[in-house]
């Protein structure tokens, strides 16, 4: 533990920046299990584990794929479209600094983004997607879709050069995941019971727990995107507190106006939408604008969800409305509210309407690429193995059929198997 070798080692890194990025990385990593609870509470009990496992598995699959190759594709020198393979297998990614923090930490921090982006998509295809196909999808999608889009905006790619503003991933993460979710929901088709039966959340407290931990982790997501403890970090952090508060307030008011009741599932959704919307703008707008963005962003997502659930599109947990629409709204409003003084480029309100167009271009580019590439990937995987379960298995539930487990068991009727070699209790004198 007390290791003179290390403590004595030359500290080229900036120490406070590094502390903050360590904390931010841990916070963002926590967001993926948090998402598992957010999503897991929204499905039926018989699919709770499967839904949570989609997030937990992303930690393994996207995490490893990122370290081995994805990071390099996103952040190594390359073309305007994709990075190179210089950093594959973490070559050249060590404790020397990138910016003011160790390169390795930068890689890890970016990895947590790749993980959660892949996990976000799962909300569109829960309660029916086969788990094996999902794992393969996550691996390929991280490399073929996430890494390039991240490169475009944050790796010095063509959107960065165009001047697209995306502080912490409105476009790279949320629009990208939202469009992939839309594509997957269409290709994988609705659940057998969709629009015939009421498919209700089995545990709303889990949804609230997930939302709370997402908010907590999001301080690292937005605040850490400053890559150090600087003015941008503080601004992004505080905006990440204020914007979702505003969205939550407006969401509750719309709920009240429409049904005379505020819902808890709505509150959890409102928090997430607010977090999504402020993500692209976090370090570019002053706090009062952040509240405005939060408040405005409630509307498209709220009514998007209402509208979607009347269509045949079984985007089961409304990834499109919450992340796709929320991210796009945030990205556009970044072009409206950003100011050079706050740390961005001047936007519409500061007299630069062009920025809104640039933002729209960024969104459109991510949409087209993510939609097409996701569809191709799914078709490809679908050639090799079936993407979704049989109707029969869907009725039984994915936990039993995909994982051989139940989230909540009692033990009645469970008979031990293959335990013939076990000596029962009375003989076990040590």
């Amino acid at each position, binding site marked *: 533990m007390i290791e003179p070798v290390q403590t004595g080692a030359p500290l080229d890194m900036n120490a406070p920046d590094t502390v903050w990025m360590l904390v931010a990385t841990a916070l963002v990593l926590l967001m993926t299990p948090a998402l598992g609870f957010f999503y897991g509470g929204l499905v039926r009990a018989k699919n709770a584990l499967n839904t949570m496992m989609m997030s937990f598995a992303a930690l393994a699959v996207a995490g490893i794929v990122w370290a081995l190759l994805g990071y390099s594709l996103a952040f190594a020198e390359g073309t305007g479209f994709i990075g190179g393979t210089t950093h594959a297998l973490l070559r050249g990614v060590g404790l020397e600094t990138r910016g003011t923090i160790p390169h390795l930490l930068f890689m890890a921090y970016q990895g947590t983004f790749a993980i959660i982006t892949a996990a976000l998509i799962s909300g569109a295809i829960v309660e029916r997607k086969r788990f094996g196909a999902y794992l393969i999808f996550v691996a390929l999608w991280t490399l073929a879709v996430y890494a390039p889009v991240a490169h475009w905006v944050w790796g010095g790619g063509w959107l960065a050069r165009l001047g697209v503003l995306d502080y912490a991933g409105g476009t790279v993460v949320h629009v990208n995941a939202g469009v992939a979710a839309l594509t997957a929901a269409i290709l994988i088709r609705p659940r057998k019971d969709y629009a015939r039966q*009421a*498919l*209700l*959340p089995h545990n709303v407290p889990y949804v609230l727990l997930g939302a709370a931990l997402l908010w907590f982790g999001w301080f690292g997501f937005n605040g850490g995107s400053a890559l150090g403890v600087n003015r941008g970090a503080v601004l992004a952090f505080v905006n990440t507190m204020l914007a979702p508060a505003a969205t939550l307030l407006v969401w509750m008011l719309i709920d009240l106006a429409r*049904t005379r*009741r505020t*819902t808890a*599932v*709505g509150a959890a*959704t409102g928090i997430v939408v607010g977090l999504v919307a402020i993500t692209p703008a976090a370090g570019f707008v002053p706090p009062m604008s952040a509240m405005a963005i939060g408040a405005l962003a409630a509307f498209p997502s709220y009514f998007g*969800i*209402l*509208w*979607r*659930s*009347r269509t045949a599109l079984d985007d089961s947990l*409304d990834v499109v409305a919450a992340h796709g629409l929320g991210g796009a709204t945030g990205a556009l409003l970044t072009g409206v509210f950003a100011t050079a003084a706050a740390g961005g480029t001047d936007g519409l309100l500061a007299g630069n309407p062009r920025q809104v167009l640039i933002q729209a271009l960024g969104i459109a580019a991510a949409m087209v690429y993510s939609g097409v590439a996701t569809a191709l990937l799914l078709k490809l995987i679908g050639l090799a193995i079936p993407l979704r379960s049989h109707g029969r298995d869907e009725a039984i539930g994915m936990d039993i059929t995909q994982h051989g487990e139940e989230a909540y068991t009692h033990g009645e009727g469970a008979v031990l198997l293959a335990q013939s070699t076990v000596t029962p209790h009375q003989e076990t004198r040590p």
Partner: protein
Amino acid sequence: MKLIVAIVRPEQANEVLEALFRAEVRGLTVSRVQGHGGELERVETYRGTTVKMELQDKVRFEIGVSNHFVEPTVRAIMSSARTGEVGDGKIFVLPVERVHRIRTGETDEGAVTPLADSG
């Protein structure tokens, strides 16, 4: 021997229990069920999904009694479970052919009479 099955409101369950104890009914089994009757349906909303909830939470009592105990038992339930509003529930009296007490092997009357000493 009869088996009395009663469906009551959960809010009244503890009062029913006490009324039964006062009526010297000592053995009974209870479960949580959901019922549909004349009650107003509830509307609930989960994101875009609005549902009509057809079922209300109820508590089900199941009480094996000897014949002369039927009347007092039914009366105890009727008085303690009634609120006067729709949804108070129902009582069914079913014939029973045999009862066994598992512990002692006693049957019928003996099986539902509390054992003073052991109880």
